[in-house]
């Protein structure tokens, strides 16, 4: 599993990862970077909600919720399956 590339929506809860790239339009990249979600950042996936609901990640010691559509555009490499959190 190590170093596998997944989207945020596919990532398991509690997984520690690093953002590789953001596949999406200029607008999506801009919105995400305003909240600190840029390539190179390390994140921990906290939760993913049912009914294709949002994905919640820890980034820079804050939590950010990304709608399912956006979460699918964020690609991460897995660093650690069971991280302790922030």
């Amino acid at each position, binding site marked *: 599993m190590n170093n596998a590339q997944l989207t945020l929506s596919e990532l398991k809860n509690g997984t520690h990862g690093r953002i590789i790239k953001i596949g999406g339009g200029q607008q999506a990249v801009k919105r995400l970077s305003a*909240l600190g979600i840029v390539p190179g950042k390390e994140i921990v996936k906290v939760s993913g909600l049912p009914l294709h609901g949002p994905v919640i990640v820890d980034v820079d010691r804050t939590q950010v919720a990304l709608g399912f559509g956006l979460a699918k555009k964020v690609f991460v490499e897995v660093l650690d399956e069971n991280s302790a959190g922030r």
Partner: protein
Amino acid sequence: MKILLVGNPNVGKSVVFSQLTGTRVISSNYPGTTVEYTRGYLNLNGDRVEVIDVPGSYTLEPTCKAEEVAVAMLPHGDIVINVVDATNLERNLYLTLELIARQVPLIVALNLWDEAQHKGIVIDVPKLETLLGVPVVPMAAIRGEGIKQLVARLPEARSGTVTWQTTDERYATVGRIVRQVQRVTHRHHTLLEQLEDLSVMPLTGFILGGLVLFCAFKIIRFIGEGLIGFLCEPLFENWYRPFLQKLSVALGGTGPLHDLLIGQLINGQIDFVQSLGILSTGLYVPLAMVFPYIVAFYLVLGFLEDFGYLPRLAVLFDGLMHRVGLHGYAIIPMILGLGCNVPAALSIRNLESHRQKFIASTLMAIAVPCFSQTAMIFALVGPHGGLYVGQIFLTLFCVWLTLGLLLNRQLAGYTPSLLVEIPPYRLPGVKVLAKKLYLRISHFFKEAIPFILLGILVVNLAYLSGFIHLLARACEPLFAFFFGLPGDAAIALLLGFLRKDVALGILAPLNLTPEQLVVASTVLAVYFPCLATFLILLRELGWQDMLKVTGIMLVTALAAGTFANLALNRLGLLAWIGAGILLSLLILLEVTHRKKEASA
């Protein structure tokens, strides 16, 4: 002189604002937008200085309406106070660097200093000052710490020393500064933080959410009923009634003017609920029945907002709301609507796009019964058994879902994905809550009360002129055919325009069968919001869209009423099975549609 407060959302900007300014605060919309901002005044060495709380923004390259407004306001400030979250320098400093690049006289308020210390974050303030080239004042605004120092150092505000940079260079600079001034020591999760995580987990999140909403409604009910019982009703009964009675006698107890001002006497007495005069019912409904609940609602809403629960609620319901073309935050008007549709209608303006406003208004007005309506349904239908009551609410939920799925498919455009920061749980300050409550209540007085009065006048005229009776007679055959209801019920349904609970009250003496009651309650719940809600929506959406909403409403009411009639009187379970199949088909269609979209 003007001072602007600029900063990311959730950094306690409005707390700093409350601490700086006096009691006179004004909230207004930025010209040509629905973005609200607040301004107040600060006494600076005898001078009255205007302080403006600029909408929260992450960057000066706007990604949304609020940020566009923030950028537009920037040139109007003589001093900019940049409120920065000490617990999250990485993200906040990006905006600081952008502000410095604009060469505005700047001072940094390093807020949430206490929280940063709790989290084991140590920041070298003098070094940060040197690196940025502008004054930096650490503060814990919620406790009033650091406010005096901030005011004292305002004259030192100056433009910093950073030159023009590209986005990437700016991020690199932020990283370099943070590495030089910040040290983080490790520590364990606190209890509140564990609660934060549990609030957004699928299972525990929904359990906690249910609990929060249940408690919220209990508290709202308690405060609302308390205000009515101990304040509003005694005031009206003891102080206002004698005055009105004298006026009634002076006007001769009858006649057009009397009917218009005081209304019909019920058993020789003025009845505040049923007389329908402008001075009786017209004042009583908004002031003694709606207002107490408005206060209760906004108090609880303000608390949940400042505590940090609302973004979590939005996250929990985002999945469901996206299916009907809304995003998570639209859950707020829906929940408010369960209490009273008036504040719900007022809160719809906070939604982002016109499309979302339209969908949310339609769904809220049609399928969300307000509290007084719910109470009347329970009182009227409840004695006949929970099954009947259950059927009404199940029908309403199906209507909500069906309508939402259909609207989402038919309306042009799409709803962008949710993207929000989820702030940590924080105990709100009393001063901030009080100011917010004051602003919202004055908003309600300005925006809602005149419309309610106008509405009562219109209904009153329609009633007095006999127009309503004429309309009821004309509708009679329709009602009998589609809903299986007697002609008298038509008057009640038409009067429902004014107050739904009153209309249900008129149904009571008609000796309807339980089945007929269910049909009537369903139609009444669906077909119109009360006049106050209607008029507020009219102003928010405009004539054209409101006409569309009304059309949808009439069709839906006809369909829901006919369905209820069929289900109860003719087909029984078959009708429900049919509806179930139809709904599943719609959901299936939506799922395949989404799959196609995903693969495209």
